[in-house]
């Protein structure tokens, strides 16, 4: 997130963070043997997706929105893996790589155009100075929001619907809520940055074609990536992976597929529309945040960072300091130096006898001789 935009794009979208999902899918046999491990994966994924979505909604820094959004999207992938829906997890991984890389790089365009500014409070109306970037970002944001027929819709749709079809109603509802929040923050970012009126005197400039051309490729992927897996069971990608991942769990019921798809589409579109209403049409978003009163917690990522920092600072460094300066220096080395000091003071006692004065030695000699004589006299 603090890295340069291409690095963020690579780390957050395509490679590093999604390695965890890849590993779960790769090692799915181990997870399945365990019995409980997949449930853990599912629950962790669910918590992660809601946590990331809410935290993303609370950020004012454009790249932080995207970073927390990545956490949330990874949650979806874990939920999918936890339900043994490995094909959809990988589909989401691929789709996410397209639109999140696109979003990070367009965010880089914005940052570059606005002299390094990332605070969305100071943006607004950037589409006038950066029209191409605006279009590209909007495609990415809509894909992220899960608006049909972009890539994010299909990927997320399979996961959310499958929860209902296998009787996991609570998972379904929470994942659906997460999808709504995703649409909300994705729309919020797009509207705050590119739409409305400028809120500061920053005037951007469009990025050169050499930067926008690769983004167009990513935008194409973000728009059409869903074609890789149109259907939950027999999409191209899922069939490709089936020899490795095995057949899908049996669908036991739930609502019919068209109904589920419609609900997912409505939720995504509703989220974007609401975002447009709140942040795009001149509504004072500062007021909303004050009314809700939850912004600080969301912006701070619910204090997880601070908690880790505090644990590290207090427990970690405290323990290290105790070991280094009390245990090591005082106790262990104290014993070592104590042995040395003991030998020294013992030698000090012995040294007292060696005064260097002849009279002392003469006295000792005399006492000794007297002692021996007395002993001999007593003995015989």
């Amino acid at each position, binding site marked *: 997130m603090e890295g340069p935009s291409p690095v963020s794009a690579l780390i957050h979208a395509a490679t590093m963070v999604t390695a965890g999902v890849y590993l779960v899918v790769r090692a799915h046999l181990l997870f399945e043997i365990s019995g409980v491990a997949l449930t853990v994966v599912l629950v962790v994924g669910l918590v992660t997706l809601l946590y990331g979505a809410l935290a993303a909604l609370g950020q004012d820094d454009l790249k932080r929105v995207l970073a927390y959004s990545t956490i949330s999207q990874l949650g979806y992938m874990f939920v999918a893996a936890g339900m043994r829906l490995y094909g959809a997890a990988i589909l989401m991984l691929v789709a996410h790589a397209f639109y999140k890389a696109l979003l990070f790089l367009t965010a880089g365009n914005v940052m570059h155009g606005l002299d390094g500014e990332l605070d969305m409070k100071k943006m607004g109306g950037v589409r006038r100075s950066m029209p191409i970037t605006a279009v590209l970002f909007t495609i990415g944001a809509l894909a992220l929001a899960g608006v049909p027929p972009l890539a994010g819709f299909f990927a997320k749709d399979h996961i959310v619907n499958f929860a209902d079809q296998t009787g996991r109603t609570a998972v379904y509802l929470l994942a659906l809520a997460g999808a709504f929040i995703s649409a909300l923050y994705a729309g919020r970012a797009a509207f705050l940055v590119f739409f409305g009126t400028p809120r500061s005197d920053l005037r951007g400039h469009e990025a050169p074609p050499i930067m926008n051309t690769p983004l167009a490729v990513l935008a194409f992927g973000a728009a059409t990536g869903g074609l890789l897996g149109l259907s939950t069971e027999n999409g191209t990608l899922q069939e490709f992976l089936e020899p490795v991942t095995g057949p899908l769990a049996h669908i036991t019921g739930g609502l019919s597929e068209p109904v589920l798809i419609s609900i997912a589409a409505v939720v995504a579109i509703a989220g974007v529309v609401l975002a447009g209403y709140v942040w795009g049409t001149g509504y004072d978003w500062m007021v909303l945040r004050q009314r809700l009163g939850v912004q600080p917690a969301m912006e701070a990522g619910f204090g997880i960072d601070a908690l880790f920092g505090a644990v590290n600072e207090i427990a970690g*460094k405290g323990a*290290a*300091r105790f*070991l*280094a300066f009390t245990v*090591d220096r005082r106790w*262990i*080395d104290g014993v*070592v130096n104590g042995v*040395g000091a003991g030998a020294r003071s013992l030698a000090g006692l012995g040294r007292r006898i060696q005064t260097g004065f002849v009279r002392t030695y003469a006295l000792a000699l005399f006492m000794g001789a007297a002692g021996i004589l007395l002993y001999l006299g007593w003995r015989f």
Partner: protein
Amino acid sequence: MRWLSLTIFLPLVGVPFLLAARDLPDRWSRGIGLLVTVAAFLVSLGILANFHAGDPGYQLTESVTWVKALHLRYSVGVDGISLFMVLLTTFLMPLAVLASWKVDSNVRLFMASMLVLETAMLGSFLSLDLLLFFLFFEAILFPMYLIIGAWGGERRIYAAVKFFLYTMAGSALLLVAILFLFSRSGSLPGGPTFDVRSLAHLELSTTAGRWLFLAFFVAFAVKVPVFPLHTWLPDAHTEAPTAGSVLLAGVLLKVGAYGLIRFNLSLFPEASHYFADLISILAVIGIIYGSVVALIQSDIKRLVAYSSVAHLGFVVLGIFAFTLQGTSGGVLQMINHGLSTAGLFLIVGMVYERTHTRELGELGGLAKVMPWLAGCFLVVVLASIGLPGLNNFVGEFLVVLGTMISNVGFGVLAASGIVLGAIYLLWSYQRAMLGEVPEEHSGHGDLSVREVAILAPVIALLVVFGLRPNLLLERIDPTTNAVVHRIECPPPAVPSALPSVSTGSAEGCPEVAAAGSTAGVSP
């Protein structure tokens, strides 16, 4: 060709010149030091060339009666364990001499001490006679005492005396144990002897074996150092001049670990088994404790010193896992640690020569001022952490694997030490090399030609041994396999002395023999 004797005593050739010529210019003293150490390195390559990789026993042996009345023989020989200790020593010596180019007081005496030190270290690794080993082992102390005490930092006298007394205390026990062994050796076919090869067949009572093991162990544990006998190390490392730190970390600590394998394991197999768990626990404590304490150090030399405590914990843990992977990994890790920690001390010395501070708080941003030095530092730091592709990874991997086979708990704890290693080393790198440059350090120059000549060979070997560990393992494995086999399957001559382990070890024997070689494991 008597390659071993030639290598051991070649360094001494320079000493008379250095001591006799009172008015020798400093340039000449340095030149003699460099010339002789380079020559010793080249000669030691002859040992490598004549070494047969598949032979687990002692090779190129020489044996001459020295003092008949004492039954002291000059017996030397090399095997898979000592081979690379010798090469590591002769490899690091010229680099240590080069790193001491800026020493400008009593250069003559400094170089003479270095050369005597080299002979003593080489003799320790190659002796097959216990008394001869003891003489060389003790002979290490004097030059090192001088190097720390005369050319060290502010608290050099305290550090030198502490180093000397601490090691001497251990040596006293060692000498008593050696003499006791000698007193019992009359029953052996060749009569009383100090020869390790004969003493290995000595029948000892279980109690005697265990007490002797402890005496040997304490002497070597001080050197390694095994927790909690380590507190001389941070002081000695910190106060020693760069060359002293390099040789302390690179070679001297290995003398202790080498002694554990060579003498404790081969002379007292039953006691080795008996104490293995206890020693493994100390080793694991050393790994974690050393890492955590290193984490909070502000003096970068102290930090590297504590990192040695942790890394040597891996070595000891591997040795006492009694699996081929663990013991080979332990020996491999001795070499790896010798290279990477020597590299760390060399670079820290270069930084100190420029900035005159070792406090991390006073450093920062040096990567902007000296990018090449920072780049070399990064490679060495990554190697120390155990990044795959660099040398330490292979050794740590084998140690953890070998430990897992014998004890899962120790393996898990040791693996956590690797993570801690990454934390303290990367954090110290960040504090020293990244961020803003303090005003007073913004004018320093990058690496000189001499410094490139020091670092390039080290870094080259970090990469080579990271990618081709088999260069080392195929020579180490036969010997460690024999050592492990001896521990796990005691020779039939002494089964009566080993009632407690005879059932447990019998099952393990075919496995050890079948395990064959770790040379198949490579990244």
